[in-house]
């Protein structure tokens, strides 16, 4: 009996449906490994020297879900102290926290806009854990010269299958620290006669160490270091004074005493005024680890008495009857 047109269409649809269903079933069975034993048998059968192969299958990769940086702001201690900061991060692993490789947990921080300012910590340790979560604790040590601004925090860890998790979503703000120290503890001049000119101090330079993370002055020669000088009064007879504007200073010392003393005049030697801050030009104090004692984070200032006038008398002159000289940065 001949089938009608409608019946034929229905039958064709049924066949198509059955074919698609069988195809999908077959693909699904392969996907879940239903035939793996069968394929394994074929492989073993084919190989004369069979070896057992262990395969670890972990579900998913680790994810760093949170980086905790406390308040997110900090200030550094001035030299010669370091400042430590504990930063924790939490990792999730779907297969279980035992699959995380602790030895690969590390954290680095990089100063935004800083040149080569990167700190790394490889010794992050497990702080606490649960079935799928582990919190690692990392201790970052910063020094007084580490730059001010925003530091990007990058936390990283691998699991036992070398799946990597990275989180760079948080920052740490480090404020500015401005400070300095100087030595020696006194400035002295050798004995000189009345009318002497261009006498350099015999125990300079005054060495300034930058104890903070702010450079003082810049490479173009703009100085932010100034000195407030006072007159030096006679210690025996204080009617007589060596005036503040008889002194000058500069960052370079010449062959002294004599007119060739760079700090004694011309160029960038500053001349002082009584009780006024005078900028010592071309003196810059960069930040850095001054304890290297190689000029890093240091500056020198040389001092000169330009003239000891004939109007004064022979005696010791000092600041003992006046206010102190003050060296100022910023």
């Amino acid at each position, binding site marked *: 009996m001949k089938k009608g047109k409608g019946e034929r269409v229905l039958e064709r649809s049924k066949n198509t449906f059955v074919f698609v269903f069988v195809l999908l079933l077959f693909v699904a069975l392969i996907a879940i490994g239903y035939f793996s034993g069968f394929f394994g048998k074929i492989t073993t059968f084919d190989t004369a020297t069979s070896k057992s192969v262990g395969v670890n299958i972990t579900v998913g990769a680790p994810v760093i879900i949170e980086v905790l940086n406390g308040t997110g*702001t900090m*200030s*550094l*201690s*001035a*030299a*010669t*102290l370091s400042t430590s900061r504990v930063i924790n991060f939490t990792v999730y692993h779907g297969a279980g926290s035992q699959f995380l490789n602790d030895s690969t947990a590390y954290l680095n921080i990089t100063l935004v806009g800083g040149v080569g300012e990167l700190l790394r910590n490889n010794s992050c340790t497990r702080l606490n854990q649960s079935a799928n979560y582990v919190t690692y604790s990392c201790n970052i040590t910063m020094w007084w010269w580490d730059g*001010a*601004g925003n530091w990007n925090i990058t936390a990283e860890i691998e699991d036992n299958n070398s799946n990597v998790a990275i989180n760079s979503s948080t920052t740490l*703000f480090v*404020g*500015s*620290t*401005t*400070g*300095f*120290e*100087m*030595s*020696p*503890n*006194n*400035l*002295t*001049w050798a*004995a*000189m*006669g*009345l009318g*002497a000119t261009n006498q350099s101090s015999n125990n300079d330079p005054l060495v300034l160490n930058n*104890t*903070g993370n*702010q450079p003082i002055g810049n490479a173009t020669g703009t100085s*932010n270091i100034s000195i*407030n000088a006072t007159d*030096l009064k006679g*210690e*025996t007879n204080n009617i007589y004074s*060596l005036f503040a504007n008889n002194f000058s200073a500069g960052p370079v010392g010449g062959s002294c005493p004599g007119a060739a003393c760079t700090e004694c005049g011309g160029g960038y030697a500053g001349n002082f005024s009584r009780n006024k801050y005078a900028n010592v030009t071309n003196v810059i104090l960069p930040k850095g680890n001054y304890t290297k004692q190689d000029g890093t984070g240091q500056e020198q200032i040389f001092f000169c*008495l330009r003239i*000891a006038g004939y109007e*004064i008398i*022979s*005696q*010791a*002159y*000092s*600041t*003992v009857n*006046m*206010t*102190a*000289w*003050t*060296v*100022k*940065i*910023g």
Partner: protein
Amino acid sequence: MKNIDKIMAGKEILVGLMVLICIGNVAAFAISSDYWSQYPLRMAPGETKEFSLILQNLVGTSDLKLKAVVSTGSSVLRLADSSDIYIVPAGEKKNVDLIASVPADSKPGQIYNVKVDFSEITDSSSGEFRLGTAIGQGFDIVILPGVVEELNKNLILYIAAGAILLAVIIFILLRILKKKSKKKRR
């Protein structure tokens, strides 16, 4: 004093001048701040903000006595404390509270330069004389667009959007009316 005594003793022989600028125990203090030349304090017109600078005397072996002065921008910045003298014990830190208050008529983008100077107060009563240290902490206060300006800006945007929408509606209505009138004529 011993140094001075030695020099004075030699004065008779040398018949000359002795110049000595002594520096006592030079204090190494530092100032920490969240604002500096590259990181200005941002404020809205008419806003008042309190913040702190931190004085450090962590490596010093003696207490520090410092005088604070707002040397630049005293019209917008002042010390919160009644005294301008701060004593920082050796090995410690001390907060210096400041209040910044900018006028309500400040223009967005306007910059106020401010600076606080901290000078070490040296004690010369003992007969010693010192070369003291001072640090100036300067930064800018930058005026941000205020709430009123933001509202005004939004209002202008809303008005512009409304006007465009109205123009489009009128244009469509006119077209419809035109078509209707054409049909009527036919």
